[in-house]
């Protein structure tokens, strides 16, 4: 049966608990290899929980359903978060999550579209938004009301192709296209190396209906997604200010957040820290 069709009223507390569950999965997954893009994954967990358990219309039993909403993860290295969400959504087996990043696992450290639930090969940054434009055009030809959500990142805005796609989306009036721009402030070489501010003004200037929120505030995320539902001739951009490593203070404050590699004993300490944080918040 299709999920979230039509989207019901949001239970913010339940979605927050879901996000914590995704984080718990991710920490277990990263522990398996002693490494992973855990900072980004923890940061985007609230957005993925809001999408897969509230906003996105999809059918776990029929992934090829033509009228499904699409979620394109352009930053393929955020895969750790996607695998956790797809497992909780019933698309991947939960007990497969521990294979993350292992040889021969479907749950790669960067997404390949051979894994169920993946709508594009992410990882070569700057690819996602243009493919989202193409999917939105295809759905329009088919007179489908399905929407296309594309996650991209602040660093990724430095790729010129992102703006080629942004221009074309507003030109073609793709109001069912929603860009989710994860501004977590880090990229491969450290803190964002080329200033992208003011981010929201850039998207507005390109003709997008734009909002800017705390991407780790579930009520704000749910509200921004609801505001993006209107079909007013404009593509939608949601600028998400997220905290890499959200939920684990030791990762939140780490300078190594782009790629995290530590030994198993320390992972156990990190997971204990996470559980303590969760306990305190409930």
């Amino acid at each position: 049966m299709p999920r979230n069709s039509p989207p019901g009223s949001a239970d913010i507390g339940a979605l927050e608990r879901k996000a914590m569950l995704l984080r718990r999965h991710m920490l277990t997954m990263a522990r398996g290899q002693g490494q992973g893009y855990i900072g980004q994954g923890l940061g985007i967990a609230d957005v993925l929980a809001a999408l897969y358990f509230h906003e996105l219309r999809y059918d776990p039993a029929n992934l090829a359903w033509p009228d499904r909403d699409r979620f394109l993860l352009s930053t393929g290295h955020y895969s750790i978060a996607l695998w956790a969400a797809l497992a909780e959504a019933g698309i991947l087996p939960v007990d497969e999550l521990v294979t993350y990043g292992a040889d021969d696992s479907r749950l790669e450290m960067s997404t390949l579209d051979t894994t169920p639930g993946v709508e594009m090969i992410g990882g070569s940054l700057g690819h996602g938004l243009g493919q989202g434009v193409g999917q939105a055009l295809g759905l329009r030809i088919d007179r489908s009301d399905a929407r296309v959500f594309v996650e991209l990142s602040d660093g990724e805005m430095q790729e010129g192709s992102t703006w080629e796609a942004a221009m074309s989306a507003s030109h073609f009036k793709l109001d069912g296209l929603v860009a989710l721009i994860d501004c977590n402030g880090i990229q491969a070489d450290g803190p964002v190396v080329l200033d992208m501010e003011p981010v929201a003004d850039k998207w507005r200037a390109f003709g997008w209906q734009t909002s800017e929120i705390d991407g780790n505030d579930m009520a704000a995320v749910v509200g921004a997604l609801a505001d993006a539902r209107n079909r007013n001739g404009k593509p939608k951009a949601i600028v998400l200010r997220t905290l890499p490593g959200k939920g684990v203070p030791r990762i939140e404050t780490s300078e190594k957040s782009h790629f995290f590699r530590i030994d198993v004993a320390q992972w156990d300490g990190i997971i204990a820290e996470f559980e303590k944080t969760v306990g305190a918040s409930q």
Partner: protein
Amino acid sequence: MEAGRTLAMGQDEAVGGGRRSVEAPFGRALARLGESRPDIVGLTADLGKYTDILPFRDAFPDRFFNVGMAEQNLVAVAAGLARTGKVPFATTYGVFATRRAYDFVAIALAHSNLDVKIVAGLPGLTTGYGGTHQAIEDLALMRMIPGLTIIDPCDATEIEAATEAIADYRGPVYMRLLRGSVPIVLEPGYVFEIGKARRLRDGSDVGIISTGLMTERALDAADALQKRGIAAGVLHVPTIKPFDTGAVAEFAASADRIVTVENHVVVGGLASLVVETLFDAGIAKTVTRIGLPDRYIECGAVPTLQAKYGLTTEAVIATIAALD
């Protein structure tokens, strides 16, 4: 065509001497296909007028998208459309489809085996606009992409047939475009098939292996050589990938000398493929390679440049006549 005059964009570059020609064979074939194939969509990056796709736009405006001067986005949008079950034909110039959009062709299309057809104008030395516009190394670049089918058609007949064939074929394709008034070279009864080379002339003194528009010149050269008592066979190889190694090896084995003829640099394209094929087949014969040098080519009139760089019938005849 007047010698000494640089062609403006949009002027014909593929007109053959004394042959009947067809206007915009690609666009007309695509527009015809559009009638029975609602899944076909057209795309261009501000070169619709110059890639002959306007007949399709005029017939199916709701299935045509011009993304502006943005070739990376052209390929990305085509990939997205393919994921919704469409069969996009995306046109631009070969230089932009390759050099500028390479990562998108490799990852967004070929890695996912998406059903997108890139149709690329100004192949090899068919424009006088210099290195920025002459796709002299496109076959070499695209050959390196796993799973990408590559077509270099010879004439109007073959462009029409190949357009239909690649629409029916499931997977990514890069096809070189001959635009404007395109001659009919191949004889009635010629059948295009993806992956198949065709022997067009028999003759065992010299075996000419050619692709693209150079097959016209190879045929004319073979006819002229016949009058000089040299029996030249011609094998036309319109599919660069997958390469018809069996037909090439068989043809090469039957000829005393081998000559490759291509509208492309002599490294990485047809010549390289033939040499690799012969080596693998254990055929130890010298291969004389006719094509463009491994360098950038200047601006100028196309006939002047083609004569200077040896892509004329006369140059093919002279090279073959001078063989030991």
